[in-house]
């Protein structure tokens, strides 16, 4: 072994405080160091040429560069080694600038320390091994979990690049929350008008497969090779025969509250959630179908001209492989019944923003009339209350739900448009209208639509004389306020889906105390997760409005496509490795790995003459954090580039 040590002056950055010549000379006293020299700027072209020449002339096979932090030029010098025909991982950087010359003033002290840092690097490089980047095949298909606007957008983007994509949506139709909206802020586009074409696009796209009324059952494998079991719930309607003619739901006698319309109207037991459903094929709700419950009725089967109704249908589990997964499972609404001051959810005329949205919608349950659900009278005085469940650590969640300020403003505007005689009152804590044309929109609602904004909280709502008495404070004027309202609309917060944690566990992605999925980095990797190949979009990560949701959907798609366009997956080789002779198979590492990068493998133990189960690292998945190595009691698992031997010897030479 011939180690070369190259000490950089970095102009005067290093040389002013560290005696670089002395350091270079000291290097020659270290075991296996055969050459050392200094240069003004080692990272410059002549500097690199110096290293390359020395490698050639002196036959060096391992290099230590004493210079700046490895975060700056480790890559540069690895490349330099590669060009000289040495494996790029046979390099160590001794950080004698940031960690030495820049933090010490005394020349002697700094020189002594620089030599010690160099000694560490020389010791470490002695045990570096030549490594090659690893390659793994990629299944060139993407799974999108959730068929709301975010999943739809992701699927469209991926299909655009001509890769197959599968959407799994648990409802009977794709469309998600956005399908229930009337207008969108701040432009007041009709939600259906912009969403429906996208829904149709995915439905007709040959690269997109839709599995509606389906759920994820199990996820195994890893990036490039996820194996996913999908439960296709029994629809009791043969999708290949049904044309969506509607004969069945027109005849169905069982009526239940419509989930899509939040109970504002009824639907039948065989139903599509809404008229523009994609696919436009109904499902039979097994809890409420008279035939499935008690073998009575059977009307739908009789009236179906295509014989599409099949009461014997069973759930089906299919298994498919994917290279990447996009999680677009969205959000659900905060349940405001925990608020006693708003009547524990028992007043029929205290509704949520989404109810309002449905009422405002011309194809909605009230045909676009904004009324009091209790008596059907037109709502005139309407109180909007913001931050219900949001920004409330006691009863709700601590975070801001981000969209409520905007949708409340939109509602106040829609109210005026629908009921010109009406008056909107908005109780708020702060107005958060940070978005393009958002502030202007709120101003417009206040100034042109006459919405009265009251800064303060509502202390109580109670019924009196057919009206809702809303008591609250206007903290700006200091006045106590009492409003006789026809309708109260609560801007309830956005929270994670009830089963979000379960899905996160299946995907091995972390989630926070609110069950919102955690991105790999809050700033620099906002749509990635720590599980390589799993990406996040939309409100499953944190509350997002439609533009942000669509943006993250496209971002996640690009990340997924970035994987798919590669011939093979390339991974840094600084990963953990198991010495199967030392491994007891206790699986402590498997249970400790955040990345699910270790699996079990059966091997023949020649000494014991029997089969043994040991751990094995999936190189393509391992992130190289090394946690497993410290968990392993028998030190059977080690980390390339930061091996036990290297660290132990580094300690020894200190």
């Amino acid at each position, binding site marked *: 072994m011939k180690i070369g040590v190259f000490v950089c002056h970095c102009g005067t950055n290093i040389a002013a405080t560290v005696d670089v010549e002395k350091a270079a000379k000291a290097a*020659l*006293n*270290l*075991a296996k160091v055969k050459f050392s020299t200094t240069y003004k700027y080692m990272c410059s072209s002549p500097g690199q040429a110096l290293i390359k020449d020395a490698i050639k002339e002196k036959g060096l096979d391992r290099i230590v560069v004493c210079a700046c932090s490895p975060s700056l030029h480790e890559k540069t010098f690895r490349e330099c080694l590669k060009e000289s025909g040495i494996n790029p991982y046979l390099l160590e950087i001794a950080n004698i600038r940031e960690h030495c010359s820049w933090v010490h003033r005394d020349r002697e002290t700094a020189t002594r320390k620089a030599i010690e840092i160099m000694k560490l690097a020389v010791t470490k490089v002695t045990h570096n091994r030549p490594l090659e980047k690893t390659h793994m095949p990629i299944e060139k298909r993407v799974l999108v979990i959730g068929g709301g606007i975010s999943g739809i957008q992701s699927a469209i983007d991926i299909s655009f690049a001509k890769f197959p994509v599968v959407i799994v949506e648990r409802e009977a139709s794709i469309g998600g929350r956005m399908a229930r909206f009337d207008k969108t802020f701040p432009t007041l586009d009709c939600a259906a008008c912009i969403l429906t074409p996208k829904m149709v696009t995915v439905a007709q796209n040959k690269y997109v497969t839709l599995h509606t009324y389906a759920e994820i059952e199990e996820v195994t494998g890893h990036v490039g090779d996820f194996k996913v079991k999908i439960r296709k719930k029994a629809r009791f309607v043969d999708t290949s025969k049904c044309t969506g003619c509607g004969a069945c739901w027109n005849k169905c006698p069982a009526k239940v509250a419509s989930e899509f319309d939040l109970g504002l109207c009824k639907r039948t037991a065989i139903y599509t959630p809404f008229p523009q459903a994609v696919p436009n094929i109904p499902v039979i709700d097994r809890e409420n179908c008279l035939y499935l419950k008690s073998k009575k009725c059977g009307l739908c089967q009789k009236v179906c001209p295509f014989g599409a109704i099949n009461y014997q249908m069973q759930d089906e589990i299919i298994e498919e492989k994917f290279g990447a997964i996009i999680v677009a499972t969205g959000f659900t609404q905060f349940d405001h019944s925990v608020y006693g001051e708003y009547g524990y959810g028992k007043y029929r005329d205290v509704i949520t923003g989404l109810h309002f949205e449905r009422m405002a919608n011309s194809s909605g349950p009230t045909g676009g009339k904004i009324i009091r659900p209790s008596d059907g009278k037109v709502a005139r005085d309407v109180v909007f209350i913001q931050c219900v469940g949001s920004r409330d650590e006691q009863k709700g969640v601590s975070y801001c739900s981000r969209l409520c300020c905007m949708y409340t403003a939109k509602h106040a505007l829609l109210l005026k448009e629908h009921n010109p005689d009406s008056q909107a009152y908005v109780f708020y804590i702060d107005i958060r209208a940070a978005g393009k044309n958002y502030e202007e929109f709120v101003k417009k609602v206040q100034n042109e639509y006459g919405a009265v904004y009251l800064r303060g909280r509502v202390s109580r709502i109670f019924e009196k004389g057919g009206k809702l008495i809303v008591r609250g404070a206007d903290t700006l004027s200091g006045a106590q306020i009492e409003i006789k309202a026809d309708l109260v609309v609560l801007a309830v917060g956005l929270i994670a889906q009830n089963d979000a944690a379960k899905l996160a566990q299946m995907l091995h992605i972390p989630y926070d105390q609110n069950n919102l999925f955690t991105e790999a980095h809050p700033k620099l990797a906002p749509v990635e997760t720590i599980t390589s190949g799993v990406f996040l979009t939309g409100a499953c990560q944190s509350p997002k409005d439609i533009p942000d949701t669509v943006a993250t959907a496209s971002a996640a798609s690009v990340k997924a496509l970035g994987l798919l366009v590669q011939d093979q997956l390339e991974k840094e080789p600084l990963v953990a490795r198991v010495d199967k*002779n030392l491994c007891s198979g206790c699986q402590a590492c498997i249970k400790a790995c955040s990345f699910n990068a270790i699996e079990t493998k059966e091997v023949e133990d020649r*000494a014991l003459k029997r089969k043994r189960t040991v751990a094995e690292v999936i190189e393509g998945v391992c992130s190289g954090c090394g946690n497993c190595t410290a968990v392993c009691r028998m030190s059977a698992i080690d980390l390339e580039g930061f091996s036990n031997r290297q660290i132990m010897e580094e300690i*020894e030479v200190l």
Partner: protein
Amino acid sequence: MLRIAQKEELQKMIDGFLADYEVIGPRELPGKGIFYQPITNAQDLYLGERFAIEPVKKFFFRPSEYLFEGGLKEGSEFLEGIPLAQNKRMIIGVRPCEARGLALLDKIFNTEYKDEAYVSLREKTILVGLSCQAPGKDCFCTSIGGSPVQARGMDALIFSAGSKYVIEIITDKGKDIFDTCPKEPDKEEIKAWESLKEKSNAALRKKIKIPESLDNIFESGYWGKVSSACISCGVCTYLCPTCHCFDLVDEERKKLRCYDGCAFSDFTLEASGGNPRPTKMERYRQRVFHKFDYFKKNFGEHLCVGCGRCIRHCPVKMNIAEIVDQAPV
């Protein structure tokens, strides 16, 4: 040559030794047992009947010893022996079996091949023994050529006789140190001493028979059976006054010699990963054969002194005496 001393006189002599020697002797650690340790005055000594857990072997063939250091210093290679201990030592209270153990170890480390570390420690040390009068239930020295009153390997041997001590001087070294004790026992006292020796011998009740040779049962299934309880620890070998297997290890820049034992699973493990003694059966058989067959063939006597330590301290009560006694020869 015999001497006799009152308890106080003996203690005074021992206190006198402290000026010239590092004096080591059995001390009682409450709740733990008896341990050989340096003493600072004669009162520290435990001169009762209980045995020290570890034999005196460790003061000569040390549990671990740095032999030399080498590497790079200022760019050039160096190799330095680690200096041998120079001070004079005396170990008081050594049992006949342990001293005999040293005599056996001498055959290994101080005959043809001279182990510098061992030899220097042997030469620098005076051994003063203490006879056994109430041997333990696991003792079987008389079955293997020893006895509770045997003086082999010692410089002097002390017998506790009521309020007095009879001192049997064996070597010149022994004579030198007990010069300060002028009193010789009278006839009565000698008679009492001789009957004491007889009684001591009789008190050792456990007798075992040791086969002439184990050759024909090397392949016997017996070894698998008797070794099944073995947990492969080092208690029997480390506490044995005669076991002397060792391992050499590189530690940083030093070469370390430390005890090895045939019970350990990596005993005779080769660098290739192969091991001629892969299971505890082969290793336990090796232990018995080494002690009761090979050593006799090579050195004329068994490599066991019948002290019973390996039986007494075996965490799973393996009993080599019974195993040898019942060997199906």
